[in-house]
C-alpha cells in the first residue's frame, strides 16, 4: 500500500465515459475504472438501490492494464486515518493485498470530492465502497469467463490481484493478473455476466478489515516529504501574510500604499457572512513579499485605517454571558425534544417541586479556537493567456475541495469551474476549521491581484484572532428524583450562538442541540430547549461541535443526580438505561476502571458517557490536585463502541487524541473577546497539553457486528464531564464552568 501524496505528485481526475448501470459506472481509460456513489449524507440505504447517474458518482477505483490498482480519494486526510481506512475496505473486497494498492488524492471533482466532517468519512462509505470493490472483482472474474467461455462462477477464485480458474474435470489451473483482464472487464459483455446480487465477503473471512494495518500516510510524515498546504513551493512564488482588522466586524477604511520592500498590499474581502463580519466586506489586507517573514514584518509595521463597528457589545465575552443568562429566563425557546406533546414549564415546575429531590445547575462553556497545528494557508497559481486570466490552480489544506472551486469562481467570475483546478494537500489538522473558505478566498484574491504564484500563510496570531470559534453556551438543567432514584422530570435549556443561523438557516440548530437529545436515560418527563444567542462572534464546526458542549452539562447533571441518590455513578446510570449497547459499554468501562476502587484519599475519579456520530464512548479519569490551581490527570480508561472496526490501531489513536483534545479544552481552553477583539493570540496564552502532562490512556474497543460508526470526534464529548466529575468529587464543590483554569499561560520551550 502506498500513498501518492507527497511533494511531487498531484492527482489527475479520471474522465468518466461509458454506460450507466446499477449504481456504478464503468469506463475504459487505460484499464478498468469503476465509478460509484459514496453517499455524503448518511444515505447508505438509498445508495444501495438508487439507479446511478453520472453526476452522483463520487469515487473511482482503477485497475490499470499495467496492473496498478488505484483508489481515487475524494476526501482529505487530516490525521484521522480515513485515507487508510477506505483503502482497507477496498482491498478487502477487491481481493488484493495491502501492498498492491495505491491511494491517490483526487483533484476537486464534483464526481469524486466530498466534504470531510461529522466523523463520516469511513462510516458512511463502508457498504457502498465494499459493493463497488466487489463489483470490480466480479467484473474481472467475468472477463476471465469471457476468455475461457466457462461461465460457472464456482470454478473461479480471486486472490492477491490474480483470478484463477480451476478446471472442474482436470483440476488444471489457469490464472490472470487483474491488469491483463482490465480492458475486457470494462466491456458490456463482462457486465452482462455479473450476478444479480454482488456477493460480499462474510465478516468472518475478512483478511484486512479489522486488522491493525500500517497507515500509508505515515512514512512521508516522518521524513519531511508529506505535502501539507503550507509546503507548496512553486517556481517564481511570492509569499503573503494577512492582516485582519483586529476588531471583529471592522472594515478597511483606506488601502495603504505599498511600503518599500513589499511587492504589493492587497485589500481582501470575506466570502460569507459570519456574525459581525458581513459578506463581501473588506476586513483585511494582505502584504506580499519575497518571503513570509519579510511579509510578516512589513505587515506588523503597516499602519492601516480601519472603520470600526458602532458597537462591539455582541463581540464581548462578558456581555455575551450576561445576555445569555438573561435569555435563559426571558428568551423564546425552541423545543428540541420531544417532537410532540412537549410538557409545559408549569407542569415541569410542579413535578420538580413535588419530587423527593430537585436539583438545578447552570453550566457555562466558552468560545474555543481550533488551533490546528498547521495554520491556515493556501497557494494559488494564476495562468494568463494574452494578458487575460484563463485559469487558477489551487493547492489547499481543505476539508471541502468543491467549496474551494466555488469560492475561487466568485473571485474570478470570468472563469468556468473547469478552468479552476484544486489539489487537496495533507492537512496539518482540520478540526472543522478547514471547511471554511475565508483563507481560500483571500489567497485567490491576492493571486489575481499580483498575477503570479502566491502562497498565503496566516501567522499564528491571525489564526487565533480570526477563527470561526466553537460556540460558547450557557445551559440550565433542572432535574428531579423520586425516592427510588428514578428521574421524575428533566428540563434542559441551552442558550448559545447558532452556527447554522450564521450560515443563513433559520429555526432549530441541529448542531447546537447535538448531545442533548436522544439521551439514553429514562425520564418520566423531559423537555429540551434551545434559545439562540445573538452574537457577532463568528462561530463554526469544532471537533464534535454541539456534543462537546452538551455532554458537559448532561453528564455533570447525571453525576449530581447519582450523588443525590446516593448511588455509584455506574450503578446509577445502568439503572436508567435499557439499551443493551449502553449497558454492555458501562459494564466494560466498570471492569476497565477497577483501579478506581482502591484510590488513595488524595485522588479522585470521575466518569462520563456520551454518544456522538453513532459511537458510544465511556471515559473514566483519575486525578489529583497537588497544588492549588493545578490538576494532575493520572490515567484515563476509555471504552468505545464504534460498530465494526476497520482498523483497531486507528481507533485507539483517534480516541487517545480526542481525549487529549477534550481534556486540554476543559482544563485551559478559552477564547475571550474584549470589546470586539480576541484576547488570546498565540499558544503562550492558549495552553495545550504537553507530553509530561498527558495521562496514561487505555482504550478498549467493544466487539460489534453493527456497521462502522464515526471515530474522529466521539472521544471528545465525555472527556470534559469526566474530568469535571472527578474534580468535583476531589474538591467537594461542583464544577459548572469551563475551563477549569482560565487565564493560564503556556511556558516557552
Amino acid at each position, binding site marked *: 500500500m502506498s500513498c501518492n501524496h507527497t*511533494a511531487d505528485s498531484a492527482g489527475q481526475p479520471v474522465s468518466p465515459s461509458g454506460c450507466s448501470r446499477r449504481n456504478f459506472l464503468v469506463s475504459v481509460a487505460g484499464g478498468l475504472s469503476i465509478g460509484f456513489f459514496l453517499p455524503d449524507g448518511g444515505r447508505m440505504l438509498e445508495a444501495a438501490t438508487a439507479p446511478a447517474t453520472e453526476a452522483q458518482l463520487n469515487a473511482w477505483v482503477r485497475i490499470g492494464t499495467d496492473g496498478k490498482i488505484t483508489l481515487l480519494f475524494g476526501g482529505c486526510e*487530516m*490525521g*484521522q*486515518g480515513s485515507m487508510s481506512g477506505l483503502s482497507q475496505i477496498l482491498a478487502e473486497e477487491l481481493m488484493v493485498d495491502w501492498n498492491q494498492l495505491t491511494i491517490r488524492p483526487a483533484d476537486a471533482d464534483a464526481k469524486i470530492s466530498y466534504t470531510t466532517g461529522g466523523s463520516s468519512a469511513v462510516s458512511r462509505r463502508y457498504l457502498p465502497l465494499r459493493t463497488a470493490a466487489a463489483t470490480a472483482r466480479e467484473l474481472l472474474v467475468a472477463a476471465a469467463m469471457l476468455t475461457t467461455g466457462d461461465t460457472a462462477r464456482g470454478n473461479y477464485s480471486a486472490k492477491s490481484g490474480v483470478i484463477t480458474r480451476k478446471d472442474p474435470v482436470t483440476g488444471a489451473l489457469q490464472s490472470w493478473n487483474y491488469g491483463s483482464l482490465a480492458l475486457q472487464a470494462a466491456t458490456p459483455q463482462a457486465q452482462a455476466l455479473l450476478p444479480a446480487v454482488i456477493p460480499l465477503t462474510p465478516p468472518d473471512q475478512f483478511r484486512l478489515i479489522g486488522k491493525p494495518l*500500517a497507515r500509508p*500516510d*505515515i*512514512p*512521508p*510524515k*516522518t*521524513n*519531511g*516529504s*508529506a505535502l*501539507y498546504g*503550507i*509546503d507548496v*513551493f512553486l517556481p517564481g512564488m511570492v509569499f503573503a501574510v494577512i492582516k485582519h482588522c483586529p476588531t471583529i466586524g471592522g472594515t478597511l477604511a483606506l488601502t495603504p500604499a505599498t511600503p518599500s520592500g513589499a511587492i504589493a498590499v492587497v485589500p481582501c474581502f470575506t466570502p460569507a457572512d459570519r456574525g459581525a463580519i458581513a459578506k463581501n466586506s473588506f476586513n483585511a489586507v494582505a502584504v506580499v513579499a*519575497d*518571503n*513570509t*517573514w519579510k511579509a510578516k*514584518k512589513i505587515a506588523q509595521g503597516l499602519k492601516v485605517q480601519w472603520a470600526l463597528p458602532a458597537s462591539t457589545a455582541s463581540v464581548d465575552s462578558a456581555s455575551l454571558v450576561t445576555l445569555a443568562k438573561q435569555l435563559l429566563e426571558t428568551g423564546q425557546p425552541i423545543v428540541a425534544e420531544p417532537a410532540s406533546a412537549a410538557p409545559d414549564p408549569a407542569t415541569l415546575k410542579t413535578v420538580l417541586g413535588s419530587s423527593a429531590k430537585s436539583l438545578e445547575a447552570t453550566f457555562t462553556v466558552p468560545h474555543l479556537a481550533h*488551533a*490546528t*497545528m*498547521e*495554520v491556515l494557508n493556501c497557494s494559488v497559481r494564476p495562468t494568463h493567456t494574452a494578458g487575460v486570466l484563463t485559469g487558477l490552480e489551487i493547492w489547499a489544506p481543505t476539508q471541502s475541495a468543491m467549496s474551494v472551486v466555488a469560492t475561487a469562481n466568485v473571485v474570478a467570475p470570468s472563469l468556468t469551474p473547469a478552468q479552476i483546478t484544486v489539489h487537496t494537500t*495533507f*492537512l*496539518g*489538522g*482540520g*478540526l472543522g476549521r478547514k471547511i471554511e473558505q475565508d483563507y481560500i478566498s483571500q489567497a485567490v484574491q491576492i493571486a489575481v491581484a499580483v498575477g503570479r504564484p502566491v502562497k498565503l*500563510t496566516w501567522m*499564528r496570531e491571525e489564526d487565533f484572532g480570526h477563527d470561526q470559534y466553537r460556540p460558547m453556551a450557557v445551559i440550565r438543567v433542572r432535574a428531579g428524583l423520586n425516592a427510588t432514584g428514578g428521574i421524575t422530570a428533566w428540563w434542559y435549556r441551552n442558550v448559545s450562538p447558532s452556527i447554522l443561523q450564521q450560515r443563513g438557516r433559520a429555526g432549530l440548530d441541529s448542531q447546537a442541540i447535538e448531545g442533548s437529545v436522544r439521551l439514553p436515560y429514562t425520564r418520566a418527563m423531559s423537555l429540551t430547549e434551545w434559545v439562540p444567542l445573538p452574537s457577532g462572534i463568528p462561530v463554526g464546526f469544532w471537533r464534535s461541535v454541539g456534543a462537546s458542549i452538551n455532554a458537559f452539562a448532561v453528564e455533570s447533571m447525571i453525576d449530581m443526580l447519582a450523588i443525590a441518590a446516593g448511588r455509584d455513578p455506574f450503578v446509577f446510570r445502568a439503572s436508567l438505561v435499557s439499551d443493551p449497547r449502553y449497558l454492555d459499554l458501562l459494564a466494560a468501562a466498570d471492569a476497565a476502571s477497577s483501579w478506581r476502587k482502591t484510590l488513595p484519599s488524595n485522588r479522585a475519579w470521575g466518569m462520563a458517557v456520551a454518544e456522538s456520530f453513532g459511537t458510544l464512548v465511556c471515559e473514566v479519569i483519575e486525578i489529583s490536585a497537588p497544588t492549588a490551581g493545578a490538576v494532575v490527570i493520572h490515567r484515563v480508561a476509555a471504552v468505545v463502541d464504534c460498530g465494526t472496526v476497520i482498523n483497531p*490501531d486507528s481507533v485507539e*489513536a*483517534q480516541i*487517545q*487524541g*480526542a481525549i*487529549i*483534545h477534550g481534556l486540554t479544552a476543559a482544563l485551559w481552553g478559552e477564547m475571550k473577546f474584549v470589546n470586539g477583539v480576541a484576547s488570546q493570540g*498565540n*499558544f*503562550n496564552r492558549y495552553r*495545550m*497539553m*504537553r*507530553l*509530561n502532562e*498527558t495521562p*496514561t*490512556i487505555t482504550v478498549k474497543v467493544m466487539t460489534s457486528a453493527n456497521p462502522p460508526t464515526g471515530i474522529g470526534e466521539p472521544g471528545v464529548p465525555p472527556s470534559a464531564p469526566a474530568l469535571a466529575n472527578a474534580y468535583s468529587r476531589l474538591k467537594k464543590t461542583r464544577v459548572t464552568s469551563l475551563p477549569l483554569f482560565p487565564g493560564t499561560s*503556556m511556558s*516557552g*520551550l
Partner: protein
Amino acid sequence: MYTLNVNGVTYQANVTDAETPLLWVLRDVLGLTGTKYGCGIEVCGACTVLIDGQVEHSCVFDVSSAVGKKIVTIEGLSATNSHPVQKAWIQCQVPQCGYCQSGMIMATEGARRAGHHGNEILPELKNVCVCGTYERIRRAVKTL
C-alpha cells in the same frame, strides 16, 4: 546572501535581513519545507532543527547566526526513513496529522545526541502535538 550548510549541502540563501529566522529561510528560500511553522515564538517546537548537534528552534534563530554551522533538518535524517527515530515512529504508528512530527523527531534526535536513551528522552520532549500523539511517542521513545 548567506552561506548555509544544511544537511551537508552548501546553499547560498538570498535574504537581506540578517534577523530573518532560519525557519523562513529554510522554507521560503531554500524550499526545505519539512521544518514547520507553528507559533513563531518558541513555544510549540514544530520548527525544531539541530544546529551543531544542538536542539534549536528555527523560528527564533537568526539566519546570520547559522552561518558556518552544521544545520540538520528532518530532510537530513533519511529520505528513506532508515534513521532509528524514523523507524521507531513508523513502527509505533505515531503520526496523526503529522504536522508536529518533524519537530518531535528532531527534538528526539537532539536528545539522543545529548546522550539520552529510552525514557530519559521524554523530559526533553516539550513540543506541542495538537493531535495528541503523546502516548505513542512514549512507546516509540522507549525503543531508542
